[in-house]
């Protein structure tokens, strides 16, 4: 089992989703995972800067990957959009862009070689579900979890490819290893709308509301997601979305790392549960 990773936190883990990072850094040592933050990493473009200047964003991600290669480690991120942007950049570079982009990276005495794979926390946990289960000290028996994948953990399959995008199972496998019960719900593979919350706010609020209602109707105690952007959308905007659509349902929304931390017996404070907007402390 790979135990050491070049860690790409992504921008939101240092800001509005800081609890995701707190929880991840709390659970990693227990799981014998060493996370070495990539020094000088920059924003992956977040599928937004790409709309302005795809070439500049490809250069930035080639540099991010080259920085990880200098560490001699595979890249791990716990943000699904970072995962997609980095993997797509790698596919473009490996698919013929490497030499051209390297002429630009040379201006900073760097080169992309293509040596570091890019993976996610969800995938690493799913691949090591038995080892994860063995570390569980407080099985989440009786907890009903709505495992919300988020688009960029699955789609497009051509770029992510870890599992079927129409019938995935990695998340349920992890939830099961933690002792919790994954509940089926209609909106499990839907989009939270985060990336269009400014330009398409009405639609996005409807999407958010429907996801929460779907999880509530399935009897979930919490929604859990591997993506901090989905978490932010479903948690921070939940009150607004539900008020707008006159729905009473409120469901705590956890980061995957927070759920793992609960099963590893870590206290709520270490997992940053009090940073979640919809009260999640009662789960701790």
């Amino acid at each position, binding site marked *: 089992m790979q135990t050491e990773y070049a860690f790409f936190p992504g*921008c*939101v883990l*240092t*800001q*509005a*989703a*800081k609890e995701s990072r707190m929880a991840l850094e709390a659970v990693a040592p227990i799981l014998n995972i060493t996370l070495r933050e990539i*020094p*000088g990493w*920059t*924003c992956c*473009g977040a599928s*937004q*800067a790409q*709309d*302005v*200047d*795809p*070439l*500049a*964003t490809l*250069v*930035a991600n080639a*540099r991010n990957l080259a*920085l990880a290669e200098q560490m001699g480690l595979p890249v791990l991120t716990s943000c699904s959009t970072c995962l*997609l942007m980095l993997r797509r950049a790698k596919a473009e570079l490996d698919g013929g862009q490497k030499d*051209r982009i390297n*002429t*630009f*990276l040379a*201006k*900073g*005495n*760097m080169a992309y070689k293509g040596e570091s794979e890019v993976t996610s926390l969800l995938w690493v946990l799913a691949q090591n579900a038995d080892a994860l289960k063995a570390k569980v000290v407080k099985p989440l028996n009786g907890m009903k979890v709505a495992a919300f994948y988020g*688009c*960029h953990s699955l*789609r*497009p*399959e*051509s770029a992510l490819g870890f599992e079927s*995008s*129409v*019938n995935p199972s990695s998340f349920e496998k992890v939830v099961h290893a933690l002792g919790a019960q994954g509940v089926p719900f209609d909106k499990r593979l*839907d*989009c939270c*709308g985060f*990336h*269009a919350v*400014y*330009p*398409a706010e*009405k*639609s*996005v609020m*409807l*999407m958010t509301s429907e996801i929460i209602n779907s999880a509530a109707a399935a009897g979930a105690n919490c929604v859990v997601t591997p993506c901090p952007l989905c978490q932010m959308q479903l948690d*921070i905007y939940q009150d607004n979305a539900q008020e707008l659509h006159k729905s009473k349902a409120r469901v705590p929304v956890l980061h995957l790392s927070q759920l793992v931390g609960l099963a590893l017996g870590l206290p709520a404070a270490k997992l940053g549960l009090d*940073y*979640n*907007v919809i009260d999640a402390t009662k789960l701790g």
Partner: protein
Amino acid sequence: MATLIIDRFDGKKHYEQSYVLAPADVSGKTVLNTLLFIKQTQDPTLNFTASCRCAICGACGVRVNGHAILACDTKMDDLIATYGSDTMRISPLANFKVISDLVVDWEPAVENLRKIHPGMVAKPEFSMKEGCRQTQAEFDRIKKQWDCIICGCCASECNKLTADNRDYMEPFVFTHAWRVANDSRSKDPLLHGKPAVAGGLWNCVHCQECANRCPKGISSADDIAALRAKVMAKGMTDGVGPAHAKSFYTDLVEDSGRLNEVRLALRTEGISTVTRAGMAITLMRQGKMNPLEAFGEDPVEGHAALVKMIEAAHAAAKE
């Protein structure tokens, strides 16, 4: 035994009907051949559309277990393996009005396609006499998008269309707008870009369903992103969408190299972001936002080198 649960519509009521088939009657067959087999042997009233049977005409898009596929290009064996079950639900494409069983109304989508002028309007240097040629390299830049067979699989799964189709068009419409706007022979990219913006170019939610479901491997999401870049380069920079995208780019290249969430809202919505004051208070109360970040942050280690790399890329792109 395999069971196909088909969502049907007789013009008045929606209902489901199950058809049970022997394993030998689905094994080795495409979904289309299975539907034809049902029509021929069990139920001649079952309606669906199909024509070429070889993934060229785009007429046989349907949903299996809620995910759009081209019926003639999808094998039953593969679906059974994917879902681990030989019971599956076949439904008409979503985000279209159903006419009968698996037959949907294409007229509104075709009307949207008309809006973006899918036919190329040639530059003045071309003429009937001289022709309207392009090099192989110029054609190669748009050939992927020419593969679109307008099957509707992208539109069926588009999460934005499902939420609200009043301010958004079918993803393939944007692909065709990109294709014609980027045709080397086209006179004016904005002839196609402007109606694309009016039709919701900035409202894509990035769900990637279009890219995932296209039987031809086209990514309308990528075409939407590229068309956004194109219309911005042509001066269409007004609005929340362009401002939002630009703020990410500004943070990456001109500021610290990382997103500044406090500035993001201000840059995206300007002074009208005060309408989000309640949200900002929530974030600050929860310790999720530091207002001091409005003053900016130091560039990340190596950012000056990144800027040099990007400048070199821009210079090379100009040449």
